[in-house]
């Protein structure tokens, strides 16, 4: 079993990561983190160690993976299909209709193209 988290250095990405870890522990699944932001600023070594420790306590492993594909949405789908993951966790952000139309939306593409269940979380939940 594997849970894939599409991580980006933003509140939504961090929320997705938190939920992804919880989901992986609950399902007794490995966690696979895919970085979807621009540039190479992934997670810091310290944070990765923390996550790994928490997963290891539950008897699971952490993986990181990247793809040759340029579009992060396509990359997430490709890795998810390739690794046959059971669930993708993504962070949502509110986007206007026009914004999505003109600039496109990675999250929307993942939601529409994914061939496995997708868990979508947002950073500003009601407490």
């Amino acid at each position: 079993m594997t849970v894939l988290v599409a991580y980006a250095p933003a509140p939504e990405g961090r929320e997705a990561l938190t939920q992804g870890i919880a989901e992986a522990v609950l399902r007794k699944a490995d966690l696979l983190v895919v970085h979807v932001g621009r540039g190479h600023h992934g997670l810091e070594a310290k944070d990765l160690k923390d996550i790994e420790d928490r997963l290891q306590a539950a008897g699971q492993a952490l993986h990181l993976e990247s793809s040759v594909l340029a579009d992060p949405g396509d990359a997430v789908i490709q890795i998810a299909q390739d690794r046959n993951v059971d669930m993708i966790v993504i962070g949502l952000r509110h986007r206007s209709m026009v914004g999505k139309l003109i600039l496109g939306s990675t999250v929307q593409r993942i939601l529409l193209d994914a061939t496995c269940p997708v868990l979508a979380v947002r950073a500003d939940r009601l407490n």
Partner: protein
Amino acid sequence: MLDSAMAALASLADPSLLIMLLIGTVAGLIMGLIPGLGGTGAVAILLPITFGMEPPQALALLIGALAVVHTSDTVSAVLLGAPGSASASVTMLDGYSMAKKGQAARALTLAFLSSMAGGIIGAVGLTLAIPLARPLVLSFASPELFMLTVLGVALAAVLSRGNIIKGISAGLLGLVLGMVGTSPTTAEERFTFGSLFLGDGLSLVAVALGIFGLAEIASRASQRRGQTENITVGGGWGKGIREWLSHWTQVIRGALIGIWAGVLPGVGATAGTWLAYGQAVATAKDKRQFGKGDPRGIVGPESANNSVEAGDLIPTLLFGIPGGVPSAMLLGMLLTYGIQPGPSIITEHLDLMYLIVWSFAIASILGALFCFLSVKQLAKLTKVPFAVLAAGLVAVMLLGSFQEGGQLGDLWVMIILGVFGWLLKSTGFPRAPFLIGFVLAIPLERYYFLTDSLYNGLDWMARPGVLVFLAILILPILWAFIKFIRARRNTNLDDGHRDERPEDDESPLKDSTWSLAAAGIFAAAFAAALISSASFSPEARLVPQLVSIGGLVFSGILLFIEIRTRLRGRTPKAGQTIAEEAEGILATQPAKAGWTLDAKFAFKTFLWMTGFLALTAAFGYLIAVTIFIPAFLLIVARARLKTAVVYTAVLYVVLLALPSLLPIDLPQGWLNTLV
């Protein structure tokens, strides 16, 4: 219309045209194999040969080459994983993976057939564009033509990859360089410093071969060893053909994307192929095999990179704004023949348009056919180390750029621009807007003054055509600005990336002392242009001054950004985590890299070129070749003695025979003038 199309096809039965088309196709295929040349190199090297020819023959030769460059560049990408041009690196993703699995023949079949189809569909697109654009083009008067030239430079600057400010600076500097020589309105000399040689303006071939050709050689000459892997093409051609037929929708889709990328100025073959790849991935439900040998990853992009060249020709021929660098040179060539693209080519030279279309389509088919027949031999050529090829390429390029004016000064200009081109390439400046600006400088000025003398004040601005072009001019700039703001605020995380390509490592000296120096050179050049244009008459002064003031603004911004990143890199902020600090160190490291190994090698190569030119100036071209080639091969390329001797002998014989076969002059040295 159909009549002229058929008449053009009939004219291709003329043996002299057919032979030129064949020669062009073969030359284009060979140049496609040589890394770094691409369509730009192919047109720039062949252009000098056409100087003595009639326009139809010259066009058949150049179009033949341009149509097939992207057919053969796949060979080395698939077989060796070393793409022959930047656009073939897309095919490498899936093609090389297939070859590693022993399916090279399958990958090559898919690629060749798609290239052929892409070329044909591109030619069809060009044909359809003629009647569609005809009423539009015929309604253009000088204000619209002026706006089009502005649009050509501006779009090239904004749409080509990398930083927009860098693109605009490069485009403006190209405009300034294009104004060197006689002013089109007042016939006074500008930026010539009293030199008679500069009075004619800089030669297009010298500029193009310097900025692209020599720069490419210098940055690649350090590759001494060729590929040593054993190449096995394998079988399965028939299966490949059947598989290709099943992907016909991808072929058409790729070709259409390619045409569109070609029509947009500054979006060249590389961006077009990445777009087609992104499209192929996006529309596939099962994305698992992409990057590991998915046929759809080859078919679409290969079809796109050939149709890009046809798409490039649409704005070039119909509107007079080049869609890319090779077509910018084609435009320059047409202008030297007195053929004005735009309204006049549609009314007076329609036969030439259809000749181009037919040549493109026929060359695409011939190119694929030749590739199928000779793939084993072509594969061998890709094994030759680049340094060995570089020696001959330098000799050929210098000879080529001598043909336009027959002056050694052109060659010095070429080497200086070569160094500048290398600087632009390694510090992440797009070079396409530079060359497009250079070609469009004079038309831009001429149309402006025509407009100015025909209309009262700014009345011409109210013409509907002009307003539409203004909108087209502003939209992409606004668009880029919005994207920039979103990136600054980090609100762009969810925006689509499909139009972007993966980061390439083509500009290793970005954010270093080198790019600071490049920004400095830009600012200095614009300042110098502004100062020296103060002495011109008001009419001759206007455009150069406007351009250099704009250039000063943009290069000033660049300089500011460069200095700021330099200062930031030195003072790490307090309270950083270790990882951030480590990243900071990694980020500043290239900033400290002054003389990297590659930079040293590039400069050494330029010194060699200078030496070659000095020898030519002293003893003449033939003697210079017999000294330079073996020396370069033995010392720089570290080739074997036998290779060096045979290489030099063959080149010498060819050069000796060349002037009697083609209208080519060899540069004479100072010694020859004494004797």
